[in-house]
Structure formats: structure tokens, C-alpha cells
């Protein structure tokens, strides 16, 4: 009795594995529900990196009501746990899995080719590979436009940047900020203070105090919480919501902001899986239609003329007519990095390890 039941169950299991592993992970019927899995490193709150990931997921659910079922796992700090959970989700019938941070990229690069029952997309990855698509935002387009506002509104000509880590994504963001400010105010400089943490509220507050003590009157950075904006408000200087809009909390001091909108990536990937046309793509987009960077709010005190300059730059960048990194550009030591009349290639942006003329600070050892 037992042996035959065991054999029967084994047969059913083997049969279902065979059935599941045959063919590509596309939906069997048009009305089948697409299961999407998303893993977050931190907790989803109402501002910051995880919030914008969650917002994109909500947009996906709204676009395909009843046809998409999402499983969201938060607070997975360790990559090993994330890797294990991705495997688990893939084995539970999820056909599309999203990694939401650069730390997931290395694990997914290894994992994706071996797990063929699902397709993988990673936010903030570098390039697409086998079974893994990536999507990243051209933060520098947003920081360039906010730099214009900063350059016009500064009275001391000193701008402040609260840097998390000296990685290329932050480096090109602060460089574009400087270039944007200098495009309207050639005397502006940017001072950087590195906190060596993506989120450390107390340190960020002290960093703002340090920058203000040096005379900075517009503070930018890569804030995940309102603390930088609130600290700036306390000191009576402007704050820029870079990659996040904190105007709910920072009532008076937020000069302007831009947000990250990942929904085009989520929607395109889900649509492709549903139609069976998914292939690994590298989506690196900034401003513009179906881009990932969207200019958000601006303070009522921002003059019309400055707003018009910002909008003109935004439209030019979106149309491909203006590249924030168009030559001639020199680095801090005076060496020319981008020749006159040319624009910087994408690979140089990805590996950027130099600071533009006018930025005062170190990149570290």
C-alpha cells in the first residue's frame, strides 16, 4: 500500500516537473494570471528608494487588474537570503522577478542563467545578461536640471552635496549638478561631504550643518528620507529633493525636486512576459516619455524665468538635443575629460571616477 502510494505521488511530482519545465516561461492561456515577485532590501515607507519601487509595482497592478498577482518581500538585508528567496519565488510559479537594488545585481547575474522558469529584471544593474534585464535611471539628467535652479537661486555661490558613497552613480549625479549650475552661474562651486551610508539620519543632519557652516545655501544629495530637507529648513537654506520629493515634510525649504518613476520598466517587462516576447534588455533612461526620471515639484518662490530655463533644459534633454556632459569638460585638476563638441560615452559615465571642475571634495582612496 505505502509503496504504491509513494510511487503514485512520486509519479505525479515527476509529471508536474516535466510539464512545468517544458517550454519557455510564458503564460499558457491568455487569461492566466502573471505572478510577479519583488524583493526589497529595506522597508517600504512613504518616501525614498523603496517607495518608488513600490509605486511602480502599484502602477503595474493598476494597469492589469486581475491579470497580475504580485508577491512583495521586504527587509531582506543579506544577498544570500535574497538569492534563496528569488529561487523560491521562481519555483512557486512566479514568471517575472524584480531585484530592486544594485546589491541584487551580482546575485541575479549568477542566478538568472540557471533558473529558466522565470525571467529576471534588476533595478540599478549595469548591463543585461543571460535571462537578466536591467533598468537604471539617468540620474544625472535630473540633477543637471536641478543644478540650474540651484545656480540661479544661490546667493553665496556655494552649493552643498551630501554624498553617500563615491560610486559612479553618485559621482555623475554631483558632476551633472555642477555642470547644470555652471551653465547659468559660472561662479558656482559645489562642496561635498561624504557620509558613507545610504541612510544615516544623524550623520546626514550633521553633514548639512557642516556644509552650511562652509557657506552653502542650497543643499542637494541623494536623500532617502526628509532629514536633509528638514535640516536645511532649520538652517534657513534651500534643499533639493534629488531622486525624491519630500514636500510633504519639508514645507518651505524644498526648492525643486525630481523623482524616479520605474513604472515604464515594470509595465514593459510584464507586457513582454505576457506576450511571450521577453528578452533581456538594458534600459538606461532619464527624462522624457517612458523615462525613469520625472521632474516633480518646485517651490512657489522659484521665479518664472528660472522655471522656464529648467523646463527648456528638460525638454532639450528629453529630445536628445542637450546632453548634460557635452564638452569641453575639465576635471578638478584641469585635465580635459570631454573634448569640445563631443559628449561623454555611456561607458565613461558608468565608470566615472573623477569630479568636474568646481566641485570641491575628494572621491576617496
Amino acid at each position, binding site marked *: 500500500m505505502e509503496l504504491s502510494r509513494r510511487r503514485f505521488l512520486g509519479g505525479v511530482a515527476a509529471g508536474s516537473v516535466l510539464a512545468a519545465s517544458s517550454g519557455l516561461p510564458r503564460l499558457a492561456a491568455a487569461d492566466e494570471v502573471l505572478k510577479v515577485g519583488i524583493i526589497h532590501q*529595506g*522597508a517600504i*515607507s*512613504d*518616501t*525614498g528608494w523603496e*517607495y518608488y519601487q513600490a509605486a511602480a509595482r502599484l502602477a503595474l497592478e493598476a494597469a492589469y487588474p486581475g491579470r497580475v498577482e504580485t508577491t512583495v518581500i521586504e*527587509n531582506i538585508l543579506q544577498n544570500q537570503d535574497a538569492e534563496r528567496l528569488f529561487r523560491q519565488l521562481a519555483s512557486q510559479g512566479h514568471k517575472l522577478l524584480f531585484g530592486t537594488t544594485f546589491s541584487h545585481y551580482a546575485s541575479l547575474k549568477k542566478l538568472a542563467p540557471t533558473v529558466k522558469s522565470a525571467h529576471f529584471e534588476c533595478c540599478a544593474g549595469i548591463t543585461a545578461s543571460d535571462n537578466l534585464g536591467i533598468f537604471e535611471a539617468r540620474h544625472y539628467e535630473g540633477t543637471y536640471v536641478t543644478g540650474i535652479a540651484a545656480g540661479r537661486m544661490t546667493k553665496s555661490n556655494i552649493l*552643498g552635496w551630501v*554624498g553617500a558613497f*563615491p560610486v559612479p552613480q553618485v559621482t555623475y549625479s554631483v558632476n551633472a549638478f555642477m555642470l547644470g549650475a555652471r551653465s547659468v552661474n559660472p561662479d558656482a562651486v559645489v*562642496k*561635498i*561631504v*561624504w*557620509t*558613507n*551610508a545610504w*541612510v*544615516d*539620519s*544623524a*550623520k546626514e*543632519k*550633521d*553633514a548639512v*550643518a*557642516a*556644509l*552650511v*557652516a*562652509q557657506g552653502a545655501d542650497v543643499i542637494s544629495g541623494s536623500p*532617502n*528620507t*526628509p*532629514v536633509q530637507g*528638514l535640516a536645511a529648513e532649520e538652517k534657513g537654506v534651500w534643499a533639493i529633493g534629488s531622486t525624491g520629493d519630500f514636500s510633504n*515634510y519639508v514645507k518651505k525649504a524644498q526648492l525643486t525636486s525630481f523623482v524616479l518613476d520605474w513604472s515604464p520598466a515594470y509595465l514593459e517587462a510584464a507586457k513582454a512576459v505576457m506576450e511571450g516576447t521577453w528578452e533581456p534588455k538594458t534600459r538606461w533612461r532619464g527624462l522624457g516619455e517612458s523615462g525613469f526620471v520625472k521632474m516633480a515639484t518646485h517651490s512657489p518662490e522659484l521665479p518664472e524665468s528660472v522655471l522656464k530655463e529648467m523646463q527648456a533644459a528638460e525638454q532639450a534633454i528629453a529630445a536628445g538635443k542637450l546632453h548634460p556632459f557635452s564638452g569641453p569638460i575639465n576635471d578638478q585638476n584641469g585635465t580635459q575629460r570631454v573634448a569640445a563638441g563631443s559628449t561623454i560615452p555611456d561607458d565613461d559615465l558608468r565608470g566615472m571616477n573623477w569630479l568636474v571642475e568646481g566641485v*570641491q*571634495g*575628494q572621491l*576617496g*582612496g
Partner: protein
Amino acid sequence: MTDAIVSMLVVTLVAGTPLLYAALGELVTERSGVLNLGVEGTMLTGGIAGFIVTFITGNVWLGVGAAMLAGAAMSLLFAIITISLKANQVAAGLALTIFGTGLSSFAGKEYVGRSVVLEPSSLTTALGQVPVVGVLLGKLHPLVWLSWILLAAVCYFVYRTRSGLILRSIGESPSSAYAIGFPVISIRYLATLFGGAMAGIGGAYVSVIYAALWTEGLTAGRGWIAVALVVFATWRPERVLLGAYLFGGVTSMQLFAQGAGFPVPPELMSATPYLATILVLVLISRDAALIRLNVPVSLGKPFHADA
């Protein structure tokens, strides 16, 4: 120029205050012979409790009170496990830290990224009028100079009162103290609860006043620094003051130094507070007699009344 100096002093004092509270509490606990490594978890629990109550009621002092209660509750748990049930203090302390961190993240889930906007306390504005020192005092929350009063009280208690003497004797030799008739278990409980309450205040200071918002793991290891500071201070309260402001000061000063354009890699600057603490610890430990004279002999050992 004075603006910059005042700014730097304020930042140093603000950064050192949570360390001072937590370290003073831990000092009293360790003086009774109980090694509570759960300070980080207790600070976080106190931090979220203080934050939630302040967020809801708008009153900082209610928040601080709630933080004290939360911190004391966490350390009560620790006390039951280590003093009554005689479990290993190191392991229980580590478990308390992990538990406190998780509990605070769970309780604070609704509040991540939210901030608390406080009116400057009337006491602070009144003190701001005082000539000369008013420039500094007017920028500090009352909890900062309350920590100085606490320091003075702890110094007086530990060295000048009979109860303080009893506390120290229990830390040195609980069996002798027990033989004389002192209530060893009760005093250890009280010392542990005091330590927890102080760590709670330290955590609440970070969440309600220093950062004024809540994120997971807000204290970023300050609880561990507080434990180290007690050793750094060779269990003497006045040296805890020095250690707290040294560490807090260097942490904040390196940001100012970066802003001023110091040509040192920022990662190295970030490490300076820890390097400074290690350096002082090494210098202190060179004199073995100094350590032997000051460390409570029964630290970390459970007390068995019948042994």
C-alpha cells in the same frame, strides 16, 4: 568665526549626548556586576517608543518617559534571564540586542521616514538669553544639559553615598555583600533597570531630537560604542563624559573637516572615531594595574546565593 565654533560645539554635544546617557546607565549596571550587552537593542526600543509617543502626543517629555519605560522593560527581561535564571550574561545581552533591533523595526514600520517637528522648548529659549553661554545653550535641547546633571548625580551616588558603596561592593564581591545582608539580587535588578531606562533615553534622544525622524536601525551602532565607552572610562563616570564627547565629537568633526576641504580620503575620516577609541583603549590597557583596580571583579558572573 564664532558661528562656526558654536556650530561645531553644538554638533559635538548633540552627538555625544545619547552616548553619555547610554554609557552612564551601562556603567551603573556594570558596577553592580551585570554585563548588559543589549544596549543597542534597548536604545532602539526606547527610540521607537519615544518617537511614537512624541509623534502622537506632540509632547517630547511624554516621549522621553515612554522611552524610559520601554528601555526598563527590555532590561527587565534581561534581568530576569540573567539574574534570576542565571543564564550567561554575554549571550543574553547579544540576544537582547537582536531582539530589540527587530522589535523596534516591527513597531516602527508605520513610522519609517516620518519626522517629528518640535517647537523649541521654552526652557531652551529662556536659557538662550543668558549672556555668553546663552549662545550655546540656546541651541541645545534640555536633555543635553540634563545629561550633565545626571552625570553629577551618578558621580555623587557611586562615590559619596552609602547606597553607592553597597552597589560597588556588590560588583566587587557579591558573596561577601550577601553575607553581610545586602539584598544583592534586588540591587542588581535596580541597577539593570536603571541602565535600561538610560539607554532608552539615549535612543529617544536620537530619534526625537537628533535625527527627528525614524528609520530602521537609527542608532547605527551607538549602543555598542556606549558599552565600549564604559571600558574606555575604566568604569569611572567622569571619564565617560570625556569618552562620549570625544567619540561624538570626532564623528561629527570629520564631516566638518570634509566640508572645509581636508585632503584626507572620506573613508578614513569616517573611521577616525573608532580609531580614536581603540587608541585610547590601548593606552589605558598598557597599565594592567589601572584596569585591575577599576573593573568590577564579579562582572559577567551570575551570582548564586547558595554558592
